[in-house]
């Protein structure tokens, strides 16, 4: 497979396409390349964490972790492991030069005050207008847990979602309106999936790229009206 070689996400013209669906790592590589140089970014637990493997040093990206750090480095290994230095997923990580530590209220002030350029989150569902559902299945016997998801969804300047487009049962996770309990209203700006990249917002859904399908094939999978992205 191949990924379009645009340097900047903001200089794309209409729809792009590749011949096959994207794997998780290819998708992570694509998200990484779409992050503007110099950005401050929070990567959610799970699939979004993969993005950190593909950030290039020359992008000069600073990673934030909600438990009180800017300048987080890669996962720690061997002698680097330090129980006092972990990420939001409680995995030991490392510290890059220029890092800083702060307490939880200051850390969430960074998120809630609109200072993060991008957060990348997983999702159960995203609606056509950018509502996010990623914290609760709504199952009656589920023990609810929210963590920092609502703060990130509401606070970051841009919220990118990474997910497979379809559930295991083949149902679209991009929906007209979320049936799962929502995390935030109208907060998602882009949805990266194995089959396409979608731009969401108040005006509905645009398709920036497709992977292994045409726009028409994609439309057949997704219950919301799609259109090719405006040249930008």
């Amino acid at each position: 497979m191949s990924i379009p070689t645009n340097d900047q996400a903001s200089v794309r013209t209409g729809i792009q396409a590749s011949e096959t669906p994207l794997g998780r790592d290819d998708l992570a590589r694509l998200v990484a390349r779409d992050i503007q140089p110099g950005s401050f970014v929070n990567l959610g637990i799970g699939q979004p964490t993969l993005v950190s493997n593909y950030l290039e040093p020359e992008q000069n990206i600073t990673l934030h972790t909600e438990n009180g750090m800017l300048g987080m480095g890669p996962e720690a290994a061997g002698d680097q492991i330090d129980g006092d230095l972990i990420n939001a997923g409680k995995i030991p990580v490392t510290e890059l030069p220029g890092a800083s530590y702060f307490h939880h209220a200051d850390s969430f002030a960074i998120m809630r005050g609109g200072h993060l350029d991008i957060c990348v989150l997983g999702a159960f569902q995203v609606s056509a207008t950018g509502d996010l559902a990623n914290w609760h299945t709504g199952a009656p016997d589920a023990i609810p847990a929210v963590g920092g998801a609502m703060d990130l969804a509401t606070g970051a300047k841009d919220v990118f979602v990474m997910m497979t487009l379809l559930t295991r049962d083949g149902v679209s996770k991009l929906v007209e309106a979320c049936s799962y309990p929502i995390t935030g209203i109208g907060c998602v700006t882009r949805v990266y999936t194995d089959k396409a990249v979608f731009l969401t917002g108040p005006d509905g859904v645009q398709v920036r790229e497709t992977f292994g399908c045409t726009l028409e094939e994609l439309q057949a999978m997704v219950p919301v009206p799609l259109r090719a992205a405006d040249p930008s």
Partner: protein
Amino acid sequence: MLNFIDTVGEAVAGIKDGSTVMIGGFGNAGQPFELIDALLDCGATDLTVVNNNAGQGDQGLALLIKEGRVKKMICSFPRQSDSWHFDAKYRAGEIELELVPQGNLAERIRAAGAGIGGFFTPTGYGTMLAEGKETRILDGRGQVFETPIHADVALIKALTADGRGNLVYRKTARNFGPIMAAAAKHTIVQVSEIVPTGGLDPEIIVTPGIYVNSIVRVAAAAGETERVA
């Protein structure tokens, strides 16, 4: 009034049944395990506990929950792969849960320490977790009214204290310590090291001694009890 105390047992001895107890830590980092063990030993029950999680594995807060000492958890993320004691109590209807988005949890704790009577935040607006809460549009955004979380006692862990009770922390173990110290009527701190007054640079102090009541040194080196593998 600041006291230096010899044992964790004496440090927690005054905690009464029915207290609201804040416990620092995020994951294992900054968890005051020895103070939590002492709280388990001291027998106080009917507690409301404020922590980011609801205990993990068979240690610390998880044991306090298992033993039925916690009537209510205020936390953001109770469900973890090894939170089986909380899960069991919750499914049995034997523990109350107030689930709070993590940033609201931190900000509500901070509000208590800072004398703020309540605040509006966009976090949670339009979600299940705002049901029944006052909302209004401010700065063009839907916002939810949240109130401070006060506590009778905070149990936290720091790296070093000086003779005035000033504290510094270590890396991401800082997390909830500074805001819980300010939000509780009585703050009990376990530290790895106590240095004489003047032994900490005034520019680097994170928690001023005014927020600290009891200090007990716990011998383990910083990060040692939390070291993974």
